[in-house]
């Protein structure tokens, strides 16, 4: 088992990065949609801790946590959100298109479900090349409504590919609950069973459980025993897109939100660490300071970086 403290640090770091984005968004310098992952960080942290830098991960519109947990450069991410030439896509992508190939984060795009088959394709390469690489495909429960998710599951199951499907079930797609989207009489992960893929449902705010399940799935995948589907229940705290909260607009209740806040993955881990005497206020404060410094650095970097010259718009059309 990985160090609990490293989980804590990862979750805290993601949380602080996201909160900083939220705070500063109103400065109107991050001029692109942002889908924050606050409340859902434990899944990214637990899952990415269970694999190595050589392994792959891909994600969708809500990808900051996955990118960071996988080891993507914070500076390049913030610069990308600022639209700068030092961004991870040199400004061509923004928050919804993160990539850091050196960290094995092969890309995120905002078309719901679309990186799922692509992730499966990276696993095909691993299998063809007899590499031990495992691919993590991160997506929301909404993505399982897309046909391409099922085509991907079928192919991964059929070919026994080393891919782990990590479904963050945060109960909503934008402002829409599950009710008009999926049958209430079956759990999301049952869809995987339909494809003959081993499936589990677990608490996505329990980083240790996430880590345990992804570790098992990756061992299995590396052994050539195929894909696993993991459904993690969690909750998005902030508005679907943007820096604020949206519990007041009517699609979900403030009570529901408050209820989930008590299940905060960070608080939970803090309590656990404190109970085991692994964390003190001072330790946490030191950690926060370190992270704060890193974040300030990244924002300073982003701010001071040059904008891409608009004439470079023509670059990268063809390889």
């Amino acid at each position: 088992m990985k160090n609990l403290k490293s989980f804590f640090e990862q979750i805290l770091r993601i949380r602080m990065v996201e909160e900083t984005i939220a705070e500063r968004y109103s400065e109107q310098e991050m001029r692109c949609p942002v889908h924050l992952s606050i409340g859902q960080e434990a899944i990214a942290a637990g899952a990415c801790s269970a694999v190595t830098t050589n392994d792959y991960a891909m994600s969708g519109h809500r990808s900051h946590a996955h990118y960071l947990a996988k080891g993507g450069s914070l500076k390049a991410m913030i610069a990308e959100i600022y639209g700068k030439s030092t961004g991870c896509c040199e400004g061509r992508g923004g928050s919804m298109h993160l990539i850091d190939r050196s960290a094995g984060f092969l890309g995120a795009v905002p078309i719901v479900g679309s990186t799922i088959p692509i992730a499966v394709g990276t696993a095909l390469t691993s299998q063809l090349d007899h590499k031990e690489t495992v691919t993590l495909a991160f997506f929301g429960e909404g993505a399982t409504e897309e046909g391409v998710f099922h085509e991907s599951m079928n192919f991964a199951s059929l070919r026994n590919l080393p891919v782990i499907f990590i479904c963050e079930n945060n109960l909503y797609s934008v402002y829409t609950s599950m009710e008009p989207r999926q049958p209430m009489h079956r759990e999301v992960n049952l869809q995987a069973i339909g494809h003959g893929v081993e499936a589990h449902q677990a608490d996505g705010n329990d980083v240790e459980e996430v880590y345990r399940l992804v570790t098992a799935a990756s061992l299995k995948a590396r052994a050539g025993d195929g894909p696993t589907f993991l459904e993690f229940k969690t909750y998005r705290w902030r508005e679907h897109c943007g820096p604020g909260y949206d519990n007041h607009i009517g699609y979900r209740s403030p009570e529901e939100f408050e209820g989930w806040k008590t299940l905060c993955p960070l608080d939970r881990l803090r309590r656990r660490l404190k109970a085991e005497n692994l964390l003190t206020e001072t330790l946490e404060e030191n950690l926060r300071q370190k992270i704060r410094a890193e974040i300030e650095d990244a924002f300073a970097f982003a701010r001071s970086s040059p904008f891409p010259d608009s004439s470079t718009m023509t670059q990268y059309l063809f390889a």
Partner: protein
Amino acid sequence: MSRILKYCEAILEATDLSLEKNPSVYLMGLGVPDPKGIFGTTTGLQEKHGSHRVFDIPISENGLTGVAIGSAITGKRPILTHQRLDFALLAIEQMVNQAAKWHYMFGGQASVPIVFRMMIGRGWGQGPQHSQALHSWFAHIPGLKVVMPTTPHDAKGMLISSIEDNNPIVFLEHRWLHNIPGPVPEGYYTVPLGPIRIAREGADITILANSIMTLEALRAAEILEKQGIHAEVLDLRTIAPLDREGIKNSVKKTGRLIVTDIGHHSFGIGGEIISSLIEEDISIFKTSPSRISLPDFPTPTSHALAKDYYPRYPHLVVAALKQFGIISSLKEFETDNLRPSDIPDSSFTGPF
């Protein structure tokens, strides 16, 4: 007739009236009944017409397009929304192989009255996958009509016409038009699908525009007016069927043409228009016509890159002057570069 509504309100009213008038009409799409109501175009409709006629759906673009077709061939008149055209690329098979061809391939036995409302994104980092305008694609497919109103007046009247039409209609709304106000008559009325709208009369040069580019064309025409050039601005509010006559009449008069489009340049709609004219009349143009459209690159996300990606009125002015032998530069006409180029108006502060 002097009642002022925003474009989004005009869409809302057209939908409301259609739901009221015809019990076969229903409306579905991601987020249709949610608090944001598709940029204010569907707000309150579920409360008013019931959740059997106005409802949210799973994220299954292709499947729900098929569902719309199935309900259409059994008597319904669905309206299906896509918050971005880019998402509808998942539904191309059903739209193009099935909806567009159904009436034809089954010998006219069943029609497919569906309105596909799709939004075209722009600005605030929409980027490569939230900003595509592929009207030329749909216009290339026999059996589809492609509608793209610019004004609130037309938005309402043409949406009602589209809902009344017995064929599949691709109804395209530019995100930057939704908050623009304009006069909208009360009550139920239609604006026919097909004819161009003469947005401004003039005898010297025709600027054929569509959607948001019509507004840019009108600004360009004002500037040109100051130079003594009377531009005629045509609003190509229907891409297919194309009003070839209406276009020809204007160009016959002016002998000069700029086609400006919100789609990519190459293999876009401008080629069809210019080519059709010259095929019919080799001497219709006094000088080479021009096309002002999006460059042949995906939309970059950073506003620093996107600012010169979208053509605006100065590009039209420069192109028009060039047709009169006057060489000018964009900078001469950039009067509003105080407003950032990635927002529709100063009230917009993100995030979507």
